[in-house]
């Protein structure tokens, strides 16, 4: 496996804030990895370090074998970056934006114009090519930004929250564009706060929290890793939800979660069928009228919350969920 992106032990502080505290990452060439995490988890700092914009305080990182600090110039030649805030020049037209980027990549004037025309066509901006970018909609701006990041035919593409703030239709449109890029064999590292987006676009997901990767795998692996299954019980008498939660406490891995709106008590369990039998027995002894008992796989939301709700001081792999996810992850990371 050739690594397109490799990061080891990245650390970076901003004043009193420890943005990254030993982040490791390995992205195989030709694959798509999503960095998933809450605000402030360190996703954008990771992207900034890998794209040579910010220097790490410790650790090292390579893109296609080039060191991001010592060989920044080589890295810049092979990457494309589309940011959280589209770096589109408002007072230039779409065509001028792309031509300028082409010139700065040292294409000749004619090459830069041809490349700009091709990209405008491909991103459905040909009709608006000669309008000032300030007249573009949010979705058009993101597409122009993405087009600008592709002018140099990058082999590795970084997308920092590519669809944040877009309406659903524009998001879908951008997803299709990213799919096409991936089909051409580019390596993509994207960040997102949306599980759905990570699941939809990426081959693998790295969950980032408090400046490090706390779990990594495919969406399926993350679901399996997060404590196996979820046991969910519903009862008719909603006044007794707390009793149910107390009864089931010893059965699960974590304290039960009570959803009063739906009358459901749920918890992750390591051993589904045994837990199911145990729970049924306890409920029966207590004489509770049960509406339903089920075993299901956790939703990605549940996995994400379990992984990112830990306090900063818990070492990675400290919770059962993270341990399980690490065990199923295939990249040999040092936890």
């Amino acid at each position, binding site marked *: 496996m050739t690594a397109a992106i490799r990061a080891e032990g990245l650390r970076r502080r901003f004043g009193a804030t420890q943005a990254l505290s030993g982040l490791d990452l390995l992205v195989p060439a030709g694959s798509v990895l999503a960095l998933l995490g809450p605000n402030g988890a360190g996703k954008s700092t990771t992207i900034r370090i890998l*794209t040579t914009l910010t220097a790490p305080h410790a650790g090292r990182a390579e893109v296609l074998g080039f060191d991001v600090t010592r060989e920044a110039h080589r890295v810049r030649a092979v990457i494309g*970056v589309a*940011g959280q805030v589209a*770096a589109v020049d408002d007072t230039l037209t779409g065509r001028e934006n792309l031509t300028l980027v082409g*010139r700065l990549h*040292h294409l000749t004037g004619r090459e830069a114009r041809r490349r700009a025309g091709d990209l405008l066509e491909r991103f459905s901006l040909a009709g608006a090519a000669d309008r000032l970018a300030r007249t573009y909609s949010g979705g058009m701006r993101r597409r122009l930004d993405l087009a600008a990041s592709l002018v140099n035919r990058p082999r590795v593409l970084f997308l920092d929250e590519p669809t944040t703030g877009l309406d659903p239709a524009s998001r879908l449109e951008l997803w299709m564009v990213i799919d096409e890029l991936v089909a051409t064999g580019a390596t993509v590292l994207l960040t997102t706060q949306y599980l759905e987006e990570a699941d939809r676009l990426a081959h693998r997901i790295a969950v980032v929290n408090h400046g490090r990767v706390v779990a990594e795998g495919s969406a399926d692996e993350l679901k399996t890793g997060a404590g196996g299954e979820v046991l969910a019980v519903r009862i008719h008498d909603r006044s007794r939800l707390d009793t149910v939660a107390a009864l089931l406490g010893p059965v699960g891995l974590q304290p039960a979660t009570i959803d009063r709106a739906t009358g459901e008590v749920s918890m992750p369990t390591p051993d589904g069928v045994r837990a199911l039998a145990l729970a049924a027995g306890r409920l029966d002894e207590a004489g509770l009228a049960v509406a339903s008992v089920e075993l299901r796989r956790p939703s990605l939301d549940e996995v994400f919350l379990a992984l990112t709700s830990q306090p900063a001081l818990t070492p990675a792999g400290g919770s059962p969920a993270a341990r399980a996810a690490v065990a199923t992850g295939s990249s040999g990371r040092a936890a």
Partner: protein
Amino acid sequence: MTGLSAAARALRWTASDTLALAGRSLRHWMRQPQLMLLSTVQPVMLVVLFTHVFGGAVATPGFEYVDFLLPGIMVQVVAWDSTQTAVGIAADRASSAIDRFRSMPMSAPAVLAGRTLADAGRNLLVTAVMVAVGHLVGFRFHGGAAAAVGAILLVVAFGYALSWLFAFIGLAARGAEAALAISFVVVFPLMFASSAVVPPATMPNWLRPFATYQPISLTVDAARALATGKPAGAWLPGALAWTAAILAIAVPLAVRRFHRAG
């Protein structure tokens, strides 16, 4: 590949990157009518107002007041307009444009060189407008064509040096408003505690040495001597030394700050 040809290629790329970005900055300026209006109408107003308001009150022995005034206003306006470099660069930082440039394999100093070059071009145009309007209110070059061109180039070169200083401020300040505020504090005392509109001989003792030798004053005095056809030897070396010194300090500062940005 020899070291020489690699260096030549790097230089060529720096030049082409600089020109591409200067073109971008000039387009920005031309497409924002309020900016264009501000930087051309304001100097015209200054020339007309100062000539008529102070014309009778300020004694300028050996000069027609308009001949005394115009070189002074030219330098003031160019110094003031150079603060636009700080605002423009701060705005580029805020809009992530600088991040995009820094993530590309382009020559890093070109981002600053392109901006300052465009601002120098704009200053040249503004200076030409002031000379034309000055002509209408009685200003004349008395030292011949070469001295006139020399005076204008001196003023524009001084503004170019200041642009690099303001580029540094634009990179160091938090946001465009802060950049403008800091630039204002730097440039305003220099503009008025100077020989630009009033002879320093009329100022209090404590202010006079500063008002006589600070960069704007020496540049004004040298340009004024060139424009009026008087010997410029007493001021020209000092004026050129200020321009060179500002460049020698501000260029490395700005380039280093650019690399550290983010």
